[in-house]
């Protein structure tokens, strides 16, 4: 049986601490010029309906619980796409006293979209790359394997490595 999740990926967009540059580009994807509804993508604004979490901006001490809360409210299978350099690594804000760094310090990230601000084309490209992971997780879920959990643990392990290496 084919996976319909790739034909109807619903997104939720969260602004962690973005300058709004990437947010505007995310919303640009929904405009008539890019029209991601062609691919069945809907901006739900509700974690319980969403399959893909788009996060812009770096995570700070105040909203890390919000990010974790949104992520934990989403039903499996789900993926996280970090949009822009701040969400990927903290960007120019990474040295700030209250900034934790990229989104992957708090929740596992599946796709990193580079750019400052990320272009709508690359955001769409990132989401489409994520669809393959989503489909994989769907079949893992169906097979009763805890593959998603494994992937998440691996990502977590990688984060620990990163901080040990001294990126923070």
């Amino acid at each position, binding site marked *: 049986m084919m*996976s*319909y*999740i790739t*034909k*109807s990926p619903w997104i*939720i*967009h969260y602004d962690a601490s973005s300058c709004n540059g990437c947010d505007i580009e995310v919303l640009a994807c929904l405009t*008539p010029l890019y*029209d991601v*509804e*062609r*691919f*069945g993508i*809907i*901006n*739900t*604004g*509700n974690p*319980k*309906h969403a*399959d893909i979490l788009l996060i812009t901006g770096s995570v700070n001490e105040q909203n890390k619980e919000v990010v974790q809360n949104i992520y934990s409210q989403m*039903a*499996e*299978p789900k993926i996280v796409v970090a949009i822009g350099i701040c969400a990927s690594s903290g960007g120019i804000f990474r040295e700030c006293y209250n900034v934790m760094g990229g989104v992957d310090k708090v929740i596992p990230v599946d796709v990193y979209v580079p750019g400052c601000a990320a272009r709508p084309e690359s955001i769409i490209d990132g989401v489409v790359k994520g669809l393959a992971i989503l489909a994989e997780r*769907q079949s893992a*879920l*169906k097979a009763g394997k805890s593959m998603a959990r494994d992937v998440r643990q691996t990502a977590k392990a990688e984060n620990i490595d990163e901080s040990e290496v001294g990126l923070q």
Partner: protein
Amino acid sequence: MNLTWIVLFLILAPFVGGLICGLDRIVTARMQRRVGPPILQPFFDIIKLFQKERLRINGIQGFCVLSYLVLILVTGAIFFSGGDLLLVVFALMLAHVFLVLAGETANSSYSHIGAQRELLQVMSVEPMLILYAVAFYIVSGSFTVATIIEHGILGISYIWLLPGVFLGIAYIFTIKLRKSPFDLSTSHHGHQELVKGITTEMSGPTLGMYEIAHLYEVIIILGMIGIFFAGNPLLGLCVLVLLYFLEVFVDCSTARVKWQLMVQSSWLVIGLIAFVNILALSVFG
């Protein structure tokens, strides 16, 4: 004969309803100068929802949504097998009571707001539905859908006798389709004050059941409007297409109103147009 219609309704309604909703989304997109999703998109969405993980927020919400779906099926079965119109109206209301309960069971203020607004929507719609049944009784002498259709085929032109009732039903059609400006209980677009209103706490298969119930409900309301044209099905089909197109147009060109305006305006339309129509019938008819 009756059983055939029930089976046909139960099997065909979600497919026809899904195609209508798919077309709806394409036409909406074209009005906004977008390309829009494929026509089968509503089916993709529903199948996906059933493939997702089941998150149970409590023990009762899933039961309430299932009851909503089952009662919508019962409503449609009564209507399309030619049953009693009053029974159709009351079963439809009971279905929505279960939907409101489903919203109220969740521990979320957005869900509660949605549930309360759903009650307001029921309040705006219900007088019209009862007047609708009464109007058909006055004209045809029966509450039974089968008899009403028979009389229509034999020559009673309901649309000529009941234009006010038709306009009243057309007005509440927006509320039933959950379209702007009366999409108070749940919104189709994210990032709003409502989040997703009554469906906020539904996810995966539960939301899938809700979506299927909505497809059935669209077909029931279209059927209820359709019997105005029992003697002339072709004209009926044209009017339904035109009416739905108008609904999409209104949806694209208006913003959500406050609940006061929804209740007041729908009661005004019901009182001034539909009720006066019935009054005139009983005086002159």
